[in-house]
């Protein structure tokens, strides 16, 4: 635990990529196989399941520090991080202990999580009295207080991070893989592939992972996804458009469809098996040949037209969709690439060759049916025509175009130059800041989460929340202004007078009955602070309604 906590601290303290890689490499080189497996598991953003309900952590923190609930909440609001607040309030050792990471997990964390989920289950099952439930919470909380006392502040903090789920220590999967690769000598791309899909953090897994020859393949294993970069400004001036094929860029769920050993596996980009969620796709795939892996997008689709992402969202949330939902939001798998053909990895083949393979595939009648399609491909002789096509994307229910180099192979991760994405210019509006909340992470404690409103007659109607886009200096100024101008507080939410105007950009609009404004916006972000504008100059809700299509 000590070493892993120190690794966390080193990663947290530096912004230099090389230092981070070095810190991880050094960790892997001294850790036991089990410890390394767990460290890798957490660094990649995985969490222990089930995680501990945060109410237990809050209760334990209050219990250990002997503070009332409001004081805990007030402090948590200021600190902005639950794991940190609880760790800092707790009493414990002043020096680190001797326990290894896997001991901490096996002997402390997992038993706690198990008894927590056990008590959760019995509460649900037997409609326990609320007294009994409180008692169970209390007993879990006092166990946690006892556990905290074994560790020093840093260990407690990391321990809590593991309890609450995400480590979030600012290393990408790519960086972690790079460090691992430098240490064990297996190339990053190969490691990436070996780590795809679901795996248990065990010594056996880790040994197989870093061994020169891989021996652990399973039929379900997907390939690492190839990702696109935004098309850089001025790219069109120096490059020939004829080298590229273009496709619509869809706002759906990126997925990989694996057909092996007579079975179908549908994987999300987050490497989660989507088993059972999209039965119509799995059914359609049954006729596809074995030894086939397709890359594509799951889209809500009806009458030859893609449905809004908000509709598809209803499907994502359902593990086993009912008949009604299946009827309301039918989906389709739009295949746009082929990674394995007749059991052979074809990712090194040029895009145009893979595309021919995809088109000539024996689809057994599946393609063009209800749930399976191939993407449309365009080619252009000049960039102007391409951009013109791109700007009609919204009419086709798409976000823009994907550009794929004719001779490009199927790369691992975000490699520059293979795939580009070119989105339609986003919508923008000038909106008034009306509520603010303290942020998390690097902005913990600062007012950096804002709610914006637009005018409707003489009222301001909240319509979007935005977190990103301002510089640190701007956030500091806005933060101070909010502290000095708060009119009312609703728990953590501060209401401020209508003064600050900011320009917001967003990707898309949909009608929504869940929002006060009647409109749901996708990916709202701040473009700039319009200090030249007064609240009265901000846009009106009707302006934005006009942007709604159809």
């Amino acid at each position, binding site marked *: 635990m000590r070493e892993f906590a120190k690794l966390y601290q080193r990663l*947290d*303290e*530096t912004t230099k990529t090389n230092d981070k890689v070095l810190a991880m490499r050094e960790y892997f080189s001294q850790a036991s196989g089990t410890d390394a497996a767990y460290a890798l598991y957490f660094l990649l953003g995985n969490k222990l399941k089930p995680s501990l309900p945060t109410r237990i952590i809050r209760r334990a923190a209050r219990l250990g*520090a002997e*503070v*009332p609930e*409001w*004081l*805990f909440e*007030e*402090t948590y609001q*200021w*600190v*902005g*991080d639950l794991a*940190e*607040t609880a760790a*800092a*309030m707790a009493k414990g050792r*002043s*020096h680190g202990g001797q326990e290894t990471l896997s001991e901490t997990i096996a002997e402390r964390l997992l038993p706690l999580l198990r008894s927590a989920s056990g008590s959760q289950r019995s509460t649900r099952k037997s409609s326990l009295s609320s007294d009994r439930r409180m008692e169970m919470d209390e007993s879990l909380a006092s166990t946690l207080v006892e556990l905290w006392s074994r560790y020093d*502040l840093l260990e407690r903090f990391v321990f809590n991070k593991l309890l609450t789920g995400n480590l979030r220590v600012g290393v990408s999967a790519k960086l972690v893989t790079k460090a691992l690769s430098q240490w064990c000598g297996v190339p990053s791309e190969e490691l990436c592939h070996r780590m795809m899909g679901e795996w248990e953090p065990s010594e056996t897994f880790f040994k197989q992972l870093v061994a020169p020859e891989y021996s652990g393949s399973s039929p379900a294993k997907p390939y690492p996804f190839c990702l696109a970069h935004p098309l850089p400004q001025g790219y069109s001036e120096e490059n020939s458009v004829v080298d590229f094929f273009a496709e619509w860029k869809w706002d759906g769920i990126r997925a990989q469809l694996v057909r092996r050993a007579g079975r179908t596996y549908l994987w999300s980009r987050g490497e989660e098996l989507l088993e059972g969620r999209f039965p119509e796709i799995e059914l359609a795939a049954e006729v596809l040949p074995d030894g086939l892996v397709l890359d594509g997008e799951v889209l809500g689709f009806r009458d030859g037209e893609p449905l809004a992402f908000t509709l598809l969202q209803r499907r994502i949330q359902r593990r086993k969709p009912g008949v009604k939902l299946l009827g309301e939001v039918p989906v389709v798998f739009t295949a746009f690439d082929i990674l394995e053909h007749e059991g052979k990895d074809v990712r090194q083949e040029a895009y145009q060759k893979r595309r021919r393979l995809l088109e000539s595939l024996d689809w057994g009648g599946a393609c063009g049916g209800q749930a399976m399609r191939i993407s449309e491909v365009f080619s252009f002789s000049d960039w102007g025509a391409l951009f013109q096509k791109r700007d009609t994307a919204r009419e086709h229910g798409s976000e823009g175009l994907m550009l794929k180099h004719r001779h490009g192979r199927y790369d691992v991760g975000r490699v520059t130059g293979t795939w580009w994405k070119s989105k339609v210019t986003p919508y923008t509006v000038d909106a008034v800041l009306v509520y603010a909340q303290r942020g998390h*992470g*690097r*902005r*913990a*404690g*600062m007012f950096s989460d804002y709610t914006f409103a637009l005018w409707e007659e003489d009222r301001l109607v909240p319509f979007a929340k935005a977190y990103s886009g301002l510089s*640190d200096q701007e956030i*500091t100024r806005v933060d*101070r202004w909010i*502290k*000095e101008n*708060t009119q009312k507080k609703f728990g953590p939410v501060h209401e401020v007078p209508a003064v600050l105007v900011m320009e917001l950009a967003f990707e898309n609009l949909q009608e929504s009955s869940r929002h006060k404004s009647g409109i749901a916006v996708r990916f709202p972000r701040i473009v700039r602070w319009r200090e030249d504008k007064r609240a009265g100059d901000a846009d009106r809700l009707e302006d934005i309604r006009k942007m709604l299509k159809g």
Partner: protein
Amino acid sequence: MFRDLLECTPRGLYCPAGDFYVDPWASVDCAILTHAHADHARSGSKRYLSAKSSESLLRVRLGQSIDLQTVAYGESLRIKDARVSLHPAGHILGSSQVRIEVAGRVALITGDYKLQSDLTCDAWEPVRCDLMVSESTFGLPVFRWPETRLVIQEMIGWWEENQRQGRTSLLLAYSVGKAQRVLAEIFRECGVEVASKVAVHGAMLGPNRAYVSAGVALPELPSAASLGGQHDWSESLVIGPPSTQSTPWMERFSDPSIAMASGWMAIRGTRRRRNVERGFVLSDHVDWPDLLTAIGQCQPEQVWVTHGFSEVVSRYLTECGTAAEVLQTRFAGEESEPTLAEKSEEAS
């Protein structure tokens, strides 16, 4: 009910019975100063009173020519109808709590204070009182200071690691108080021999001399600027005020590792916002447990809470059975976390 004792006025805390102010923020006739930090000691008043050990620092900060009367800790003084004495606050050299007694009622103004030991100043003393005016800079239960010795050992470990890598160790610390405390602790741990590898920012030379003249043992240290362009910084520990971060002054050092010593370093968010590689949790203020201990030992009937998380602390005290209220100061109050620049004490 403490009207004769203390009043909160636009110029600061005022004692009507004695016709004087404590740490006023405007010019007045008679000002008692708790300590030499800029947010407490302001120039422009006619006459000042402070603890004897504060004199050298105050003259560095406010000028040699100020009209300053000093008293020893514990020495009682009559000012009009008030009886006044100063008691160590443990914050920095010469820092005092002000005890004011009028008609048998006692008020205690803590100024800034801490209970942790400090080699460079007298230790805080509990003073029984009816009304206590307490700061609350770190008045949240997440603030629990680690032992000073552990922090200093960690700091030395950081310095040694940097020496191995040939990097300058640049420690940001307030010029008055924190810098001298850190230096004294480091020399105690490592011996004064290491002084040859230590330099300070020019703004610290005056305060260092003031400490030495008040009897604190500190070796003579050069300013970084006086060491010239050819100096080898690869093994150096340099102490600079927080405001020097990303200024040209820093460019002279070889690939510096930048750290900061402050109570705010206890929280990851404030540490990351400061953009320092390392944060050492070292404060000259009371943490949460010590704040409660101090109030418990002084046994006031009522507490006025100021400077920091006043709302939180006063609500908590009230719930625990001690009458408390927020003392409105001209500082923005608890909502605004004092930016470190505001708290920093730059002589320059």
